[in-house]
């Protein structure tokens, strides 16, 4: 999927989605982390990327936090792409109904909760360039 959106706009939107998700878990200590862009290889014309943002949410019960996020996101019409909260992976992946961003909440080996948001594929110049 590619979308007419500038990289700056996508970064702002990814950060806003991550912060909004973290705000659902208040009071909590929230730390932002930069995440490298990934490439949409083979998408024509070349050069499309996906940008991402991440927040770490500390000082919460991670199991309860995953449940809270699930309830809010399903209530808001997010598409559940993968619900592995109950398994060893302890992760939940949803798609935003408005802009197609993906949001993943997951718990790592140190029992820490992170929320990573990624954009659909887009070209750094903004709108889809012609294939000429």
């Amino acid at each position, binding site marked *: *999927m590619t979308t007419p959106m500038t990289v700056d706009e996508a970064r702002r939107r990814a950060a806003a989605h991550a912060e909004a998700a973290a705000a659902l878990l208040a009071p909590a200590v929230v730390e932002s982390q930069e*995440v*490298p*862009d*990934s*490439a*949409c*290889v*083979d*998408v024509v014309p*070349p050069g499309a*990327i*996906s940008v*991402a943002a*991440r927040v770490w949410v500390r000082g919460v019960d991670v199991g309860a936090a995953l449940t809270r996020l699930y309830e809010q996101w399903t209530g808001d019409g997010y598409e559940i*792409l*993968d619900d*592995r909260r109950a*398994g*060893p*992976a302890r*992760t939940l*992946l949803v798609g935003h109904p408005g802009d197609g961003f*993906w*949001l*993943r909440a*997951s718990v*790592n*080996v*140190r029992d*820490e909760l*992170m929320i*990573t*948001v*990624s954009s659909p*594929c887009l070209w750094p110049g903004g709108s889809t360039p012609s294939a000429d």
Partner: protein
Amino acid sequence: MVTGGLVGANPDQLDELAARMNSGADTLEAVRQAIFLSLRRTEWPGPDGDQFRHDWDHRHARVIATAVTALREAARVLRVNAAEQRGASLDGSGLVPPALFGMVRSALDQVRGFLGAGLASIGYSRGTPSENFAWWSGLTPERRAELIHEYPGLVGSMDGIPAADRDAANRIRLERAVADLPAQVAQLREQLANGQITQEQFNQRALQLAAIRHLHDRLARGEDLYLLGFDPSGEGRAIVAVGNPDTADHVATFVPGMDTTLASVNGHVSNMAALRDMAQSLAPNESTSAILWFDYDAPNGLMEAARATHAEAASENLDGFLDGLRASHVGEPSHNTIIGHSYGGKVVGIADREETLAVDDMIFIGNPDIGVNHASELSVGAGHVYASVAPGDPIELVNIPLVTPAEEGFGSQQFTSHRTEVPDAHSSYFRQNSPAMFNQAAIITGHGEFVY
């Protein structure tokens, strides 16, 4: 390896082969000049030194010069042949004389022998990755720095040399390639104007040249990257590590599939950075290095990819590289994983069958057959073989006579890439946040229990 007449050969491939031969000739010539200068600068009194200098001047240097001439002549004939085939006027006169290739082979054999014995006698070595590491470790820092600057091509491609030193050598090669870009672009424009290449060929080559500059700029920005291999000739080759593999707890090596060229490298490096990021988020106490390994001639298009020849030719390079990672690693051995995407899986499967790869886990994503029919035939054992194919990946539509890694009968640990069909499914395995990315991060950090 060229084996004889070239009737019906693809003219583009002939041109590429010619470019590689010219590049090889350039390298040999550079080595000849460097050794000449070193011998003049090195104090080596006594009969052994006298004998070596005599042998060098009267035999070895001439052998190399002969090989250089033979390579350049073969390249010239190949270009003529390619031009004639483009003109559809092939009548046999453009065929490459088998005798010429015999001459090239003979000269190269002599050069190989010389490089083994002659270089060793003046302090250079090219052995197994472990031997290379031992030799390199025995040199003083000053000598290593000297070799990096005098022989960047040799040091930069030598398996077993520490990543930081390979990186330093390859950055010199990259600088040279960037300095050569204006001339390359001018030559391309001239070829286009003269009708020697089509607009499409011009565009493809221009993308590769742009990728060289992009890679250069990216390395200059100070990202945590190590250039472990670089060759700008033909469709190009590059090995780029995100994070230092010599000090990492986990090392993942990714082998890309068909149609990979230098123009693809930057995208793949971005995906290695994203994979490493996900891995280190899942296991923050441990460090991870993720490597793009593109040191083989990837097939162009499905017709070439249907054959195993490109994979078979890649086996030795891949095996040597992975052995080199083991040899130069500092401290406890790292947990190493190989990832084969599409045709890259065939490269991995065949290399393991032929050479036994030095890895702990294997991941196959979006593959046709991989040269073996069951996970238990791979050296890591079925419990350490993971595979996935994304819903909607057109690779599933390819008629493949053998069992593919993600099929039930293969015996691999299957994992989810995406729950539903996604656009560009065949290239979606490193999409940020996807199940494919999450699961690969879990595997490369040794947390198979997270895989779903």
